[in-house]
């Protein structure tokens, strides 16, 4: 005995109807939605292959875009995600077709594609994050994170009890290795100035080789790498791997004497492992993106055009060392004074932190 299709459909609809009995709320008064639908300025962002929920630079960049829209209701923001670099061209082209006034390409690999689209559309303002462009209507947003990582390395060298610290990366790309270079330099500086002999595992500045888990997602891989370093005597871990870096924090939480230093954001706030974190080497993507969107808006409304490049440094607050939070008492006043002095030297240029991956200056 077959049931007629529409009977089945009827049953389905009544099931939906029953579920909808819960839907007896009151209707709201008619009003527009809160996404600046009538805005005159459209700012668009194309992500790299990590996607927008990468807990790293795509996510921070998008947060900056949204913050700009929050601040100025005449700005609307739009997002296009790429799953590989072969998606960059169509995505950038689509933002042009959508009538975007300001287009941000996130990731150094997209710079060439941004340049090509920008050259063809000289009336639109573009920006490239973590890349450097010489095209007139492309604004380069870069970060000299070697500077904040240098301070983090110095702190690590002062805090280690075993005399061994370790770093490891997600994938060997410049935005990652620049942190590792700076970290290594900071340790070297501490060894020279204070006569210590702190060893760094996981990264060799000279050879530019080190330990990479070849993923930004797999926290389990990060944990096993961290465990290996711990058995080799490391008591401070510096993972530069986005979400995979969480593996280092779980490893630290399982070993009483092991602590860690986070990157990109203040890990005390962005992760659940604040108690394990001495500090973080921050990269101010959110602020930089927000400021550049607002500047592009001003430029479109008669203000000065945004050209050239922005390099986040300790001097302009684009990169920084996060507060010590729970470890505030553990870090001696002497170390804190030295850090302040080093920060000042970096700002006034008497101390230069070199990295092969440092942003090209304008």
């Amino acid at each position: 005995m077959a049931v007629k299709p529409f009977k089945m459909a009827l049953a389905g609809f009544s099931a939906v109807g029953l579920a909808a009995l819960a839907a007896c709320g009151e209707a709201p008064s008619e009003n527009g939605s809160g996404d600046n639908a009538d805005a005159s300025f459209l700012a668009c962002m194309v992500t790299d292959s990590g996607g927008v929920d990468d807990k790293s630079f795509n996510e921070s960049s998008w947060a900056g875009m949204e913050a700009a829209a929050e601040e100025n209701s005449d700005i609307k923001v739009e997002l296009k995600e790429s799953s590989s670099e072969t998606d960059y061209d169509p995505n950038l082209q689509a933002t042009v077709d959508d009538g975007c006034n300001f287009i941000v390409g996130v990731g150094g690999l997209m710079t060439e594609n941004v340049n090509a689209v920008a050259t063809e559309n000289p009336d639109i303002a573009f920006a490239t994050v973590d890349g450097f462009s010489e095209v007139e209507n492309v604004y380069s947003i870069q970060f000299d994170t070697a500077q904040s990582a240098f301070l983090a390395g110095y702190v690590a060298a002062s805090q280690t009890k075993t005399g061994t610290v370790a770093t490891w990366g997600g994938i060997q790309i410049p935005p990652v290795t620049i942190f590792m270079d700076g970290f290594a330099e900071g340790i070297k500086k501490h060894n020279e100035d204070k006569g210590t002999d702190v060893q760094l595992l996981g990264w060799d500045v000279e050879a530019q080789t080190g330990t990479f888990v070849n993923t930004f997602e797999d926290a389990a891989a990060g944990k096993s790498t961290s465990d290996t370093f711990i058995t080799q005597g490391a008591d401070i871990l510096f993972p530069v791997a986005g979400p995979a870096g969480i593996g280092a924090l779980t490893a630290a939480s399982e070993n009483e004497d092991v602590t860690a230093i986070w990157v990109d954001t203040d890990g005390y706030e962005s992760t659940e492992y604040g108690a394990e974190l001495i500090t973080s080497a921050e990269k101010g993507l959110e602020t930089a993106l927000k400021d550049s969107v607002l500047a592009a808006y001003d430029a479109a409304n008669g203000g000065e055009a945004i050209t050239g490049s922005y390099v986040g440094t300790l001097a302009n607050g684009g990169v920084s060392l996060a507060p010590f939070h729970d470890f505030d008492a553990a870090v001696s006043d002497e170390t804190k004074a030295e850090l302040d002095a080093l920060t000042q030297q970096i700002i006034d240029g008497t101390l230069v932190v070199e990295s092969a991956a440092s942003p090209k200056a304008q």
Partner: protein
Amino acid sequence: MSTTDTQAPAADQPEAAEEKPNFMRLFGRYLTEANSVMVTIYSLLLAFLIGAILLIVSDEYVRSTYTYFFARPQDALTASWYLVRDSYIALFEGAILNLNMLDRFAAGNAEFGDLLRPLSETLTYATPLIFTGLAVGLAFRAGLFNIGAQGQMIFGMLGALIIGFGLSLPAVIHLPLAIIAGAIAGAAFGAVPGLLKATTGAHEVISSIMLNNIAALFLVWAIGTDFLHSETKTDLITKPVDETAVMPKLLSGLSESLRVNWALPLGILAAVFTWWLLSRSTFGFRIRAVGFNEHASATAGMRIGSTYTTTMAVAGGLAGLAGAALSLGVGSAGLTTNTALEYGFDGITVALLGRANPGGIVAAALLFGALKAGALSAQPDVPVDISTLLQAIIVLFIAAPALVKAILHLRTPRGGLVTLEAKGW
């Protein structure tokens, strides 16, 4: 009563053999029967229906209108309707024709080339899928489940790349040589699971899955080597291929932004070759015979082991061509660990939807290419995952015709339901 007769299930009404079978009646019968064509069509329709429901559920604003459904139902219904309609229009615009661009073209503000861009994107994303679909489909016919197209494609990418930047030759020789290198690299890697099955009996599903992982990790390592790594960039990206080895764009005369290139005709050619191989050649006869019944084929004097190895090598060669299409086409500026995407795995779904038949595979690849291009362009109004989602649902239904038959109460066709299956377990 006469119209319902044709649609009602025949279960409680014995076939009225004495009635004259007119065209409409036969057509109606065909529509309500779970034959492979109708199951495919219904699978697509059901997938878009389920996709619509998921779009509604996942949209925050539309969902909020359902919280006061009984106070003002028209809100929820119109919001749902507009969301679904606009989403599918956006997919269409990204895959076939952008209506907005059509207006601009009519007003003289856009060029003809701009109008073709969505189609060009569809074809661009479909091209690798044609090759990987054929790679999986061909193996299906020999009763082999080739999960390894992803790895074979990766080796094809590397093979084409090495010839692409490593030699300097005139374009007439360089490009074909690089393409052949991709096919050979893919074939060599593809032959491994076939050889393992022939010699040791290792199941090709297991070995080809494992080989995928080996290929993916090998790629990460290979890109980092001095030989392959870009000289100008510190990111994990390879050297670009020489101009002489780049696949020329098909429509660059109309607009440089039309990315579709000569890999597409090559894909069509590969489909014709596969069709010829399967249905006209002795080797194809052997493939089908072994796929149909290996024991009978062995008794008839066919060498099963060598058929497995050769079939997997040819399949690997086809997947290798997908890699060459990427290396020398959209990825010619340099390969990263992401260039291969999941084209190899998507090839499995393409082969299933195309029912392992070269023409069907090309059609299925075009559909999936359109979904991918449409979803990419419809961002951010439509979640980009919609294309993967629709693909998954389509294949779910294709792989389980009984499900479609049960949902829509279709009749069982003569000869039973057609389920594509790879044997060998």
